[in-house]
Each structure stands twice: as C-alpha cells, then as structure tokens.
C-alpha cells in the first residue's frame, strides 16, 4: 500500500468513527416528505379517474337530456288533440308487440295511387283500447277501423322517401277480416272534401284541419254514430297523388298483423273485476284488465301527432345521428421548457413539425354534438445547443541550468614586497550554468458537450371528450369542436442538455409523466359530396394543461396544425 492509499484509508477509517445521534426532528422532516409523496401519488391516481368520470358523466348527461327530449316528443305527439286542446281519447292502438304492417291487398277496382307499403316494422308498445262499439268477431272491425287509422298515423319523423299507403289494422284481432261491411266517415266531411284535402299539398298550418277531423272521426267512432265512412288518413300523403277511396274499395290487409296485444274489450260497458266500476268506452285496459288512466303512446316510428294525422309522411328511417371521422395532418409546436435546470442549459428549443392522425365517433344533433375518439399526436421540437468545453491548466515546476559567459578572476599567489602583501591573479573567461526555476503549463481542453442540433419527438395517444357546435349550409358545414384530452405517453426520442452543461440526457431518461391532461380545439369546414361522406379542412390547436415531466424541469406541450378529415355519417 502506497502512502497515498494509506492516507485515503486512514481518512476513511477516521470518518467511520463518527457517530450520528438520532434526532426526532430529522424523522419529522422525512415524515413530511413521505406524506407529500403520498398525496402526490393519490392526486396522480385521481386525475385519470376524474377524467374518466367526466367523460362518462358528460355522455350520460347528454344522452339523458336528449333521450328525455325524444320521449317528450313522442308522448306529446302521439296523443291527438281535440278541439278543446285536450287529448282525444285513443280509440285504437297498435298492438303491444312489434307490428309489421301487412302489405295491402288492393281490392278489385281500387284506384289508390299510393304505392303499396313496404315492409315496415314499427315498435309499438301501446295498450289495448276499448272500442266503444260492439264489434262482431266475424266481421272485420269496420267500425273500429277508422279509429285505428286515426291513431296509427305515421310519425312525422318519417319525413323522407316516397309515399306509403298503409291499410288500417284490425285492432285486437288475429284473424284477417274478409271484407269491410261497414264504413265510417268523418261527420260533416264527404269524399269530395277528403279528395280536396288530399289534392292540396299539406302545409304546416293546414295540418291542423285533418288532425281535428281525425279526432272527430275517433269521437264519432266512440259515439257510435252510424252512417259514417272510414277514410284511412294514412293513405293520402302530402302532395301525393292519392284519391279518396270509398271505404268499400279500400284495400284490406291480407292477414291480420301478428301481435300479442290483449284482446279488445268489445263491450261498451264491462264490469271490472273486483273494482265494481264500469268500464267506460274511453277506458283502456292493460294486460290484467286494469284501466289505464293516461294514454301513453310510445310508438317511435308512428309518433303521430294530431297535427300530422292526415299527413302520413314517408316511411324512411331518419339519418343516424352518429358520424365517424378519420383525420390526419401536420402539427407545428412542441415542448416549452421551464424551471431551474432549463436556465442552465444554454441552449435553444424551437418549434418543430410533427404529425397527428386519429379517428372520432360523434353523436351529432342539429347544431351540437358530443363524442370521443383516439388521436395519435407527435410533438416535435428542435434543439440547438452550443458546444461547451472545460479547459484544464496543469502547471509543473522544473529546474534548469542557464549557461552564462563570464570572466573569472583567479588568485594564483600571494607575495610580499617591502612588507606589502600582493595577490597574483589571472582572469579566465569561462561559461557557468546558472540554475533556474521554470513552470510547465499544460492546457487541456475537454469538450464537455458537443454542439448539437436535433429534433426531439414526444408522442402521445390522446383520448378526447369532444363537444361540437356546427352550422350546416347546404353541402357545407362549419363547426367548432374541442374538449379535454387524456394523453398517454407512447414514445419519445431525442435528448436534452444536461443541467450541468456537460452532456446530454437522453429523452428516455427524462422522467415523463405517463398520463397528462390536455386539450384540443379545432374549427372545421366540411363539404358533403353525398348524404354520407364529407371531407373537411380543420385548423387545430392542441396542448397539455400542465407539466408533463416529473422533477424540477417543466415541460408544457402545445402545437397548432392543420388536419384533413374524412367523415362518414351513418344511415
């Protein structure tokens, strides 16, 4: 062991002799740190949960609100209003089960120009209704047919496509009627009136009249007024070439629609078991025979209001509110760094060009929408770092001899003359070496950090909660879409200067947070080239709300860009 090693060893041993008495206040400091770390971890766990809750809650709220509106639409439109503004009693209702409207079999000589109804499946969940007139089971429910027709007006939502003619359904019957024997018509309105109505294109204002007439027809049916003729209001369509058809020539269903409805109580007055109350003609009963107080019509596709009772709209399924989008484009931006380590970098970080691609699914209303999707975004930044070097100066002392030419006087002898002492000398020219001290200095320049120009890239998979507001103008759609995002770190590439300025830290060694809350906002303009497909140009702003790094160095990501989108509207 050399003296130097022995010295090191002695120092080590000496230092190991030290004792450090435990102090409670030291532990209190550690406890505070542990507590802070625990809180930080809890907060980190909370954010993804909160984001998920927010997304889920917003979705549920949206569907709850829009769902309620739809239910309200149905319930208000399904019950026809009478002249006094109260709900007219329903005289007939479709079966409780899904009813497939039977294809009409035109009676011989029938001249109805409406096309035969296509197979239309309707969701009907209505209760059977007591018809006021006793109806013979052997004959088709001629008396009840108009009432059925009144209540089975098609939904106003079926506003597209060609006209459809539907035949009235026998209510509560499972066997097909052979032929109508009795027809009922609206009081005070003859075939000519009906034809006039039919020939006249129906407008919103005009829709009220036939609505009333159907209500009246229903009432007439309930009252059992004889001599009325049933006119199926479902037959004519607004603007369609439909002529009023006499009841006797009306097409009848080839077969009774299959349904599980309770049989209609055909007696006008029937005792309710156990209640002692007599069923009134307007009472409806449920499957157990209990009267139902309020008419509830939930036929979504029929959704017939009294207003549109005479205007059966075409049966074409409405366009779906769902749309799918795929998009891709370029982003300019990247990370902005701050914090104490950033001040020591002595390097610039400028914006870079990244890219983004994604897919979204949106539930689009008339002007607003909600949805989510997946975006893959890369945020690029350009790092410009200058070279840093360390200069070491090593000084060493050395000795040297310098030759000096000189004349040396040498004493060769001493002698005395007359008592005086003399010295005999000679001069010798010689060269002597003079010892000198010098210093050798060695300068070593160590490059601590090479200059570097590179692109750093950090990629995130972002899950946004998107809210949309838009306006449609012909084939063009203008809108704004945005919302919070939950970014999942997927990849990073590049390096950052070391705060000590003597190298670079690989971006993979920088402590990134795996989950970051962010935002996305974009405006879009789309052109629809057919009913389903549209293309759009979308300027976008994306970023992160907070710091995406753990530690003293802070990074906030932001980028602007342009996306091209392709959207498909489900049908």
């Amino acid at each position: 062991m050399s003296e130097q090693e022995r010295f090191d060893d002695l120092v080590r041993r000496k230092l190991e002799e030290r004792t450090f008495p435990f102090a409670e206040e030291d532990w209190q400091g550690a406890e505070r740190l542990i507590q802070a770390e625990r809180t930080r971890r809890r907060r980190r766990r909370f954010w993804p949960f909160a984001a998920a809750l927010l997304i889920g809650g917003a979705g549920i709220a949206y569907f709850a609100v829009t769902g309620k509106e739809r239910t309200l639409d149905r319930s208000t439109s399904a019950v026809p209003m009478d002249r006094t503004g109260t709900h007219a009693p329903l005289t007939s209702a479709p079966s409780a089960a899904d009813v497939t409207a039977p294809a009409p079999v035109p009676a011989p000589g029938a001249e109805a120009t409406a096309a035969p109804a296509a197979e239309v499946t309707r969701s009907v969940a209505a209760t059977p209704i007591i018809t006021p007139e006793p109806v013979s089971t052997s004959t088709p429910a001629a008396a009840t047919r108009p009432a059925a027709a009144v209540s089975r007006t098609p939904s106003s939502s079926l506003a597209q496509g060609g006209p459809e003619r539907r035949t009235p359904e026998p209510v509560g019957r499972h066997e097909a009627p052979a032929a109508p024997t009795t027809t009922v018509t609206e009081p005070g309105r003859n075939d000519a009136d009906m034809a006039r109505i039919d020939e006249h294109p129906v407008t919103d204002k005009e829709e009220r009249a036939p609505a009333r007439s159907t209500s009246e027809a229903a009432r007439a049916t309930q009252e059992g007024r004889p001599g009325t003729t049933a006119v199926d209001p479902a037959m004519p369509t607004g603007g369609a070439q439909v002529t009023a058809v006499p009841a006797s020539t009306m097409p009848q269903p080839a077969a009774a629609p299959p349904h599980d409805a309770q049989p209609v109580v055909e007696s006008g007055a029937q005792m309710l078991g156990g209640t002692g109350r007599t069923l009134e003609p307007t009472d409806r009963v449920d499957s157990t025979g209990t009267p139902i107080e309020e008419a509830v019509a939930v036929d979504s596709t029929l959704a017939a209001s009294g207003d549109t009772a005479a205007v059966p709209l075409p049966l074409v399924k409405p366009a779906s509110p769902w749309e799918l989008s795929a998009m891709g484009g370029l982003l300019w931006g990247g990370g902005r760094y701050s914090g104490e380590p950033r001040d020591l970098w002595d390097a610039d970080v400028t914006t870079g060009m990244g890219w983004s691609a994604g897919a979204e699914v949106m539930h689009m209303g008339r002007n607003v929408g909600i949805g989510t999707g997946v975006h893959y975004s890369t945020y690029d930044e350009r790092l410009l770092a200058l070279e840093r070097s360390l200069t070491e100066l090593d000084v060493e002392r050395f000795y040297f001899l310098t030759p000096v030419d000189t004349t040396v006087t040498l004493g060769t002898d001493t002698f005395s003359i007359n008592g005086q002492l003399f010295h005999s000398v000679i001069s010798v020219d010689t060269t002597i070496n003079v010892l000198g001290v010098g210093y050798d200095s060695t300068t070593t320049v160590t490059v601590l950090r090479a200059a570097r120009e590179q692109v750093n890239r950090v990629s995130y998979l972002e899950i946004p909660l998107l809210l949309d507001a838009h306006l449609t103008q012909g084939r063009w759609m203008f809108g704004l879409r945005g919302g919070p995002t939950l970014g999942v770190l997927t990849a990073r590439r590049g390096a950052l200067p070391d705060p000590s300025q003597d190298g670079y830290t690989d971006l993979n060694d920088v402590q990134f947070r795996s989950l970051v809350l962010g935002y996305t906002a974009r405006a879009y303009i789309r052109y629809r080239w057919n009913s389903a497909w549209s293309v759009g140009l979308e300027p976008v702003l994306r970023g992160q709300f907070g710091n995406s790094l753990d530690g003293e160095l802070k990074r906030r990501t932001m980028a602007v860009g342009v996306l091209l989108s392709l959207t498909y509207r489900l049908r």
Partner: protein
Amino acid sequence: MVSDQLIARCLREEPKAQYELYRLLHPLLMGICTRYERNRQDAVARMNQGFLKILTHLADRRPEVPFELWSRRIMINTVIDDHRRQKQRKAHETLEAPPERADLAEVNSYLGHMEVQELERMLERVPAMSRQVFNLFAIDGFPHAEIAGMLGISEGTSKWHVSNARSILQQALARAVAVDRARTPSP
C-alpha cells in the same frame, strides 16, 4: 441489520415500519450526507430525500443485493444528482495546479490519532467538487471512470480533483503537525 420482515412492512407502507427503517438507516445515510454537504441542515435534508427514494423504490430492489449496500448507493446517487442540478459551472473553468505535497509519513502518523471533528473541519475547506470526487473515490470506492460518468466529467479531471483534495488535506494536516510539534516540548 434490516430484516426482510421490516422491508415487507415498509412495502405495505406501514408508518411504524418506515420509522423503524429510518432509525436503522440514520447513521449510514447521515454518514454519507455529512461528507458531501457542508452543514448538518443540508445533510439532513438530503438524507430525507434519499430515504424517500429508498421507500419509493423499495419494490424495485433486487433481493440478492444487500439492503444496506443498495441504500448506500441510492443515497450517494441522490446526493450526486442534487449536486449536478445545483451545479452552475462556468463554461471555461480554469483549474489551478495542486498545491505542494506535504510529508506523507508525518501526516499519516498524525491522522491516526487526531480528532475526527478536526478532520471534518479540514474536509469542509476542500472545494466542493474536489471534496465530492475525493469522497467518491477515496471513501466510497468508486473508480475514476464511474465517477467521470456520474459527474459528467473526464477521468483526468476526476483524478485531478482527487489529487487536489488530497493535497489540500495533507497541507492542512502538515500545518496541524507543525503546530502540534511546536506545542509539544522536545525531549
């Protein structure tokens, strides 16, 4: 000696177990921190940071690595990381030549019986970087190559810092020897 049971309890984040572990590790961690920090307050703060790291990375520890050794390494890394963050080195640093060496035999002899507090005071006088490198090399036993990697310096610089620290210490010790000799009457 830290038992596996205590580690398991710490993994379950039991406060009592954490306290026990802190008490057990306190001398070791404090010994490291006081060597690298100038005062006790800073040393305690650094020790607590290191202890938190030990707790949070407890699950990552490989069981075959002795716990004390692992804790020691974490503590040293914490100290070094902190120094790297705080370091504001000038772009062109000029390092002076190490001072003259003193008579080592005398110095070593004196070192054997001197007070440890006196050595601590001498160590405090060594420049921070040199003290750090000396600690890493002479006390903690890291090779120059590793020190260079840890601190982001060249190996040559690391050697220079060790040499510089030694020289400063030895000169201080030589002065102390001279004073000691002056006090002691010669026989």
